[in-house]
């Protein structure tokens, strides 16, 4: 009978040895990336776990879609039709603006902007560590996902891909403390860097001098500088601007427009070189 009668040896040297081993692993992983094959292998092995972990979300989505009843569905259908109509109208305007932009850029002899091809992705996991605003999506190398790729939801920028395996990718959200994105204020074109704060509802602008024109409710969009993110996608709205006269910089708080802690359906953005002809949109 192998029950609780056994006592385990409490060994400090053993613990220290394992801690030392962990430190060696940390350094090896940081400098050599020796664990990449193990991660890839585990990704395949853990697929059923991700699938199982995603079941509650799928059940909730299914019940929302099917348990609503015919009345609820009819209302939802009407709302969606109205939304589609509005979006189609806006799209027509965008097509015209896009064509005009291409003509103007040609006149200015400026470099052609890149067209972007989106690919739908679904959220399949969330990091269990609340310090890390990292999610897992069901697109990977097989779908062409790559490290540094921008990820959007229906309303704005969500984050960027930081790790890719065969069939899934890890996305670092813009609210993570390790994340920063170059932005500009739509309208005034003032440039800044929006950093994550570890709070899903808050970003901050770093090193903003008091002379800069930033006001509450200004929309910040990606500036495209740095090459990681395509330009022009909404990032957030300025929530508050606080200036302490004793400080050299202004504290600017930003509320992200993307639903960082809710969105389940996301878009991966693939840059595609624009065609040579200015009219070939």
């Amino acid at each position: 009978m192998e029950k609780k009668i056994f006592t385990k040896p409490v060994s400090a040297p053993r613990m220290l040895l394992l801690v030392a081993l962990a430190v060696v692993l940390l350094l090896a992983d940081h400098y050599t990336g020796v664990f990449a094959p193990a991660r890839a292998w585990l990704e395949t092995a853990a697929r059923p776990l991700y699938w199982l972990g995603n079941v509650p979300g799928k059940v909730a989505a299914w019940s929302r879609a099917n348990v609503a009843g015919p009345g609820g569905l009819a209302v939802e259908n009407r709302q969606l039709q109205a939304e589609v109509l509005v979006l189609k109208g806006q799209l027509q305007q965008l097509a015209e603006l896009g064509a005009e932009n291409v003509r103007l850029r040609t006149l200015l002899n400026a470099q052609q902007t890149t067209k972007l091809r989106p690919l739908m992705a679904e959220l399949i996991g969330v990091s269990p560590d609340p310090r890390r605003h990292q999610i897992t999506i069901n697109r990977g190398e097989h779908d062409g996902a790559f490290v540094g790729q921008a990820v959007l939801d229906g309303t704005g920028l969500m984050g960027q891909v930081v790790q890719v395996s065969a069939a899934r990718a890890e996305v670092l959200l813009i609210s993570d403390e390790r994340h920063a994105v170059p932005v500009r204020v739509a309208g005034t074109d003032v440039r800044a860097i929006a950093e994550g704060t570890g709070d899903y509802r808050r970003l901050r602008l770093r090193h903003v001098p008091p002379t800069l024109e930033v006001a509450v409710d200004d929309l910040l969009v990606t500036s495209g500088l740095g090459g990681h993110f395509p330009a022009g996608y909404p990032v957030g709205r300025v929530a508050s601007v606080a200036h302490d006269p004793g400080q050299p910089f202004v504290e600017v708080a930003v509320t992200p427009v993307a639903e960082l802690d809710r969105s389940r359906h996301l878009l991966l953005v693939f840059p595609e070189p624009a065609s040579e002809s200015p009219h070939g949109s």
Partner: protein
Amino acid sequence: MAARGNAALQVAGSVGIALVLSMNGVRSWAQFLMPPMVLLVTLYWVLFGPVLYGLGFAFLVGLLLDLMLGTPAGEYALAFCVTAYLAQLLEHRVRHFTIPYQCLVAGALTLAFQLIMVMFGLIEAGGTLHLAQFYSALGAMLVWPLLVLLLGRLHDRGW
């Protein structure tokens, strides 16, 4: 031998279920209350499981978590190992504690684990320290009785 295999199956199964539970946890403010389920299950086996499941076991589960979650390899492994060591120091007493006292111990151990992870976070990102990062200790205290009940049932069936 069969008993040992059975135990391994139970341990692996419970760790797997904890992994699934923590992968798609609730988000937003409630996420901070979400207890580290994998850690709690590991601590349960370290405290009440067969002699085989000690520091090495905690280290391996931590490493598995590192590789699965994309954290630097060794981060969770170190935190799990140190927390398991602290648990082992209290092992004899905890076995005789009533459930409310065990909950306090589970909360304290989760707090120690979070402290180590916060330390890693500060080294990595130079970020800020949020009090909310320690709320999971509260979640751990709430979940522990359920965990003891469920895993205890498995345990009592014997191996």
